[in-house]
């Protein structure tokens, strides 16, 4: 389990490099058949990378607290602990924080599996992009309101929800999501475009 979590975390952290590199390569290729083939591969890799981000996030929220085995009860405890963390950001009311804490991990789990499965990738990647946009709006909102990510009265220099956090998360999360979404819709358009109609054989004229 720990190995899988480490792999997911690694992909979530660094996977965007593969997606961006693939997108650049696809952009440079002139041959349309080779480009479509590369975009297909890119979408598979991108789906795994995006799915890993969500699965790693869900794992972090659902994994048992130290000393407890995996069980439904231990996951409920982890969710209750996550509710405390959500509330401490002071962005949501207690009831909203509690709802988010109970829904978000399973939403992330579902979206992660959906992205990796490749089923209706256009829509899964579009949803992932929207989630990341919402996430970044929340960070930006916290930045504008002057809130610190560290809560309460700080001791050292706090990690501000500032441009650095936006740039980092934009590069790691939003950029690959937008690339995969664009690629998925582009590929769909390419493959569903009407082929050139065959030249009709003219019927012999009836005299």
């Amino acid at each position: 389990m720990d190995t899988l979590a480490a792999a997911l975390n690694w992909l979530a952290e660094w996977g965007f490099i593969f997606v961006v590199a693939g997108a650049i390569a696809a952009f440079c290729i002139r041959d349309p058949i080779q480009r479509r083939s590369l975009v297909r591969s890119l979408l598979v890799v991108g789906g795994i990378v995006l799915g890993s981000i969500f699965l790693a996030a869900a794992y972090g929220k659902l994994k048992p607290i130290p000393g407890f085995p995996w069980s439904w009860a231990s996951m409920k405890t982890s969710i209750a602990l996550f509710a405390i963390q959500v509330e401490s950001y002071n962005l949501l009311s207690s009831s909203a924080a509690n709802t988010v804490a109970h829904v978000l991990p399973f939403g992330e789990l579902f979206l992660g599996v959906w992205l990796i499965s490749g089923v209706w990738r256009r829509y899964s990647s579009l949803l992932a992009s929207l989630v990341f946009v919402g996430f970044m709006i929340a960070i930006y909102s916290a930045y504008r309101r002057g809130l610190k990510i560290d809560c309460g009265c700080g001791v050292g220099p706090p990690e501000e929800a500032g441009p650095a956090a936006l740039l980092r998360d934009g590069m790691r999360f939003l950029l690959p999501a937008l690339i995969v979404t664009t690629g998925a819709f582009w590929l769909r358009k390419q493959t569903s475009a009407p082929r050139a109609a065959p030249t009709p054989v003219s019927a012999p004229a009836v005299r």
Partner: protein
Amino acid sequence: MLSIVVFGATLHATPRVAAPQVSPLVPTSDAIETYGSSGAPITMIVFTDYECPSCRALYENSLRPMINDYVASGKVYLVHHNFPLPQHKYGYEAARWATAAARVGEFANVEAALYDNQDAWAATGDISKYISAAMPTSEFRKVEQLMKGCSFNDAPGSCPLDASINADRALGEEIPVRATPTYVIMYKGHRLPAASGAVSWPILKQFFDSLLSQ
């Protein structure tokens, strides 16, 4: 489909259960700034600064109802540690008063008085006014005796109570405390990661209930 099966299978893999830890955060004897029984299944260790508004929010919204409910019923043992911050002018002095009050058995009343009147004494520095109102006069006289050499204008290090406050701070720096309030929850000897910021009692209670149902 494969990913669902793999992920589902890994969910059921049972990790090794870590052995309970003995923590220096929980006092073993002379525990005076505590609430409840040390035999409670849950221990909550809180690092606070009496002049910190978030610490007041934690106390007023969570700790006070918790003391009346889960501490009183033996479910939670609450341990307080001082972590006065340099940016709060009277935070350290307030910690001295609370430490002195704890030594005469008046910690609970003084903590409540300090948080209830935080805005007032943080503006004027007149902490003794609220301390004296929080306990019988005879007890306040004892606290005053302990506070000799400990007022705001006395030189640092002249107060015998400072050793206790500084020991608390040193413990906090080991965690490390990055903001106040910071709290560490222990359940049956298992120490959970430290958390910061105010939390409401219903959310905290939900977590405790979940722990207790394990």
